[in-house]
């Protein structure tokens, strides 16, 4: 598979999912189980992505500048800061720690 194929396959798949919602009868979502699983699926994937993006370096678990950066991000989210502030702050913290040589 080329990178272009992967891009198109994933993009068209996601677009199809958006369209599918308009074709499915609303009663499906009224059932508690599919509604619950749909909500939790998003939570599980995002949480797993947070963990992997913070700790993984290829097949290894590494604690580096990303960890303090993520803690700062969590603190800012607790203080109800906007998405942009949180993301930029995390980048700045990691970049500074690396610049100072305090973390890898």
């Amino acid at each position, binding site marked *: 598979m080329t990178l272009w194929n992967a891009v198109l396959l994933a993009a068209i798949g996601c677009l199809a999912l958006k369209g599918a919602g308009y074709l499915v009868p609303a009663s499906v979502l009224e059932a508690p189980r599919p509604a619950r699983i749909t909500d939790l*699926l998003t939570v*599980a994937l995002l949480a797993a992505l947070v963990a992997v993006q913070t700790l993984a370096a290829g097949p290894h678990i590494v604690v580096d500048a990303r960890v303090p950066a993520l803690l700062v991000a969590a603190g800012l989210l607790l203080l109800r800061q906007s998405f942009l502030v949180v993301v930029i702050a995390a980048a700045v913290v990691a970049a500074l720690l690396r610049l100072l040589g305090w973390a890898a």
Partner: protein
Amino acid sequence: MIVMRSEERTIESGPEGEAAIEVRVARREALGVALATSAYGISFGALAVASGFDVWQTCVLSLLMFTGGSQFAFVGVIGAGGLAAAPAAIASALLLGVRNVAYGMRMSPVIGRGAARRALAAPFTIDESTAVSLAQRSPRARRVGFWITGVGIYLGWNLTTLLGALLGDVLGDPKTYGLDAAAAAAFLALLWPRLRKRQAIAVGIAAAAVATVLTPVLIPGLPVLVAAFVAIVVGWFNWFAPRVAVRAPGEGAA
């Protein structure tokens, strides 16, 4: 990203002035959300280029996929595992896109009948447009909220994606600028508003633990997919169910 409830009441008709105010409020909210959301397209563009995508591929992702969580997941998994991780990257993007099915179901009465209108609405059916729309009260304000938010973010997000991609191209090593940490923070910020209930918090912690433990064992991308099973199992058996559910009706608010 806002918890939406299907039983929300709508005002079918009201005095002329009130209706106009509601539409104006919807328009203002929609523009605010569109501006704020569009801004972080820059981080997506820069990250995608840092993960090995060219500028065109990055732009196609924002033009066609146009759903932030899936886009970040897709480039994140390929960035970690290369082309070998493509199947896992596609699966991650699609699984994260499943929530848009639920949004489409909620938006379809707002958008109204007609295949053409619904087909046109589908690409703009995302977290923000659904949330802004359902926060309005009158059907007209809901429609205005949906379209302005969706189309506004689409224009802004694609513009900033291009900017970020061009910027990322000249920046060099993304780690110097903390872009890897920015991606982690982006996922956390997307996750945060969903962590209100005990069940969601439990699933989030368990999924993060599963993905971490499996990282040294499986190829990149797969740990995230396996972690998704946590949601299916917990959701199916309804473990850690909200305490409110077992109380008598009216005793506690959800």
